């Protein structure tokens, strides 16, 4: 008798839950299509420097006392920087500010047509040097910790290697490709045998974001459809929809790439694999990883479909630093730095490592 009642109750509960969810799904579904893009990158900041595609942010501190060494974040050139400041509670920038770091961030705007000649030297040397000088002027500290994510990590690594760590106290990289012959789909689509990078760049100037986006989507062709199914199934959950929209906005919000920079990246990194061979020369300087002697932190994601773990693994092995921390964490390319996975796994480890080397 009691069993039947409980069963009836659970059936009733289930029906009620189903009806509730259906109603909520419709409400959220309508607002999903009608409302504006959700706000992102909300941590308070000043733009302290701007030059064409480059903007330098200085975030307002969120602690009474900060570490001596400021942090300069180098973001990937193909994506918007707000992935590191997605929303309160899910923002690496906010986390670092609350933990007591003085945070600066290099943000990229779409390069103007006249900036099609910006080269690998501009991105990996001139811009970073310029920002380090401004950070030093603003803080009075001659050295900063460089943090780079994805291609931002490549730029930070190249800078530190080319200048033998001048102005850099620590280097922290997340999912940073070094062996470009292990980049899976990217290596295949940019294959020298059929990819005519010169023709493409000469024709277009800057490489439009849809070409870059296509490349990213090809690494996981079913990703978009699976995400839409997951969204539909969770449409009743307002928080899920809100978060989904923020990530979806970011993943489709790609930046064009400066033509010359793209050409050099393909030729020097993908074709010649210059960081692995140690033969890369940028701006007359040899970029050899063994010249990096500052403390290094490297984190990569086990299920990264963009930068495969074998592509980033050589970094920790090839640098000349004695103080090296190399970790592989669960998650994917984005969840490593943003989202619940990052909050619980990567950020605390980074803070433990960085705090010891920032006072």
């Amino acid at each position, binding site marked *: 008798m009691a069993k039947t009642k409980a069963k009836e109750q659970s059936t009733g509960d289930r029906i009620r839950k189903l009806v509730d969810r259906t109603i909520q799904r419709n409400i959220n579904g309508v607002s999903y299509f009608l409302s504006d893009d959700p706000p992102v990158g909300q941590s308070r900041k000043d*733009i*302290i*420097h*701007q*030059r*064409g595609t480059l903007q330098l942010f200085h975030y307002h*501190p969120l*602690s*009474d*006392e*900060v*570490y*001596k060494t400021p942090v300069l974040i180098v973001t990937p050139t193909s994506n918007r920087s707000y992935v590191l400041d997605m929303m309160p509670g899910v923002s690496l920038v906010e986390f670092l500010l609350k933990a*007591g770091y*003085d945070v600066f961030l290099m943000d990229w705007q779409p390069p*103007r*047509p*006249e900036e099609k000649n910006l080269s690998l030297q501009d991105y990996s040397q001139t811009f970073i040097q310029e920002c380090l000088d401004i950070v030093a002027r*603003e*803080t*009075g*500290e001659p050295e900063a910790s460089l943090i780079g994510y994805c291609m931002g990590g490549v730029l930070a690594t190249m800078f530190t290697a080319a200048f033998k760590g001048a102005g850099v106290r620590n280097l922290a990289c997340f999912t940073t490709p070094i062996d470009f012959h292990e980049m*899976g*789909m990217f290596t*295949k*689509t940019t*294959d020298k*045998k*059929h*990819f*005519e990078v010169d*023709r*493409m760049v000469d*024709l*277009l100037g800057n490489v*439009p974001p849809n*070409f870059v986006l296509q490349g990213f989507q*090809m*690494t*996981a*062709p*079913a*990703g978009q*459809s*699976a995400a839409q*199914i*997951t969204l539909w*199934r*969770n449409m009743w*959950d307002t*928080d*899920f929809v809100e978060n989904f929209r923020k990530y979806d906005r970011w993943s489709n919000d790609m930046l064009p790439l400066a033509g010359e920079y793209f050409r050099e990246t393909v030729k020097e990194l993908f074709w010649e694999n210059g960081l692995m061979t140690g033969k890369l020369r940028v701006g007359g300087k040899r970029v050899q990883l063994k010249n990096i002697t500052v403390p290094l932190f490297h984190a990569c994601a086990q299920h990264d*479909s963009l930068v495969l773990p074998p592509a980033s693994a050589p970094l920790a092995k090839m640098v000349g630093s004695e103080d090296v921390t190399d970790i592989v964490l669960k998650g994917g390319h984005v969840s490593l730095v943003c989202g619940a996975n990052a909050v619980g796994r990567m950020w605390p480890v980074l*803070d*433990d490592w960085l*705090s*010891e*080397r*920032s*006072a």
Partner: protein
Amino acid sequence: MADKKGGDPVQKTVATLEARVNELGKAVFGSENFGKVMNSAVTTQARVQKTFSERMAKNLHFYNMPSQDDIVQLAEQCGRIEERMVAIESMLHQLLNQKSGTVRKGPARTKKPKSATRSKKPDAK
């Protein structure tokens, strides 16, 4: 929050399907033939895009309307003005700081590493 529990059969099926399609896609997209086709498609797309924008610009010019290039040029000029304003603002901040005698702003840069704070705690007891 969302239905993301490991036990959810629909979610599991979606994940399995996604993995299979991704593998299949990688096999197709990674082939040399696909690379060749893709390259010529990209080049053609780029050429069509360029030709179309040139023709459109001519038509717009005929109707006395701004083309995308004109708007880009305007945006560039606005960008340059904005850059100068940021530079002026930064110089003003520096001047103000110099006048008031404060070289640096913000909190004191005296925070100690976590280990130092941890090791101090037992002594305090």
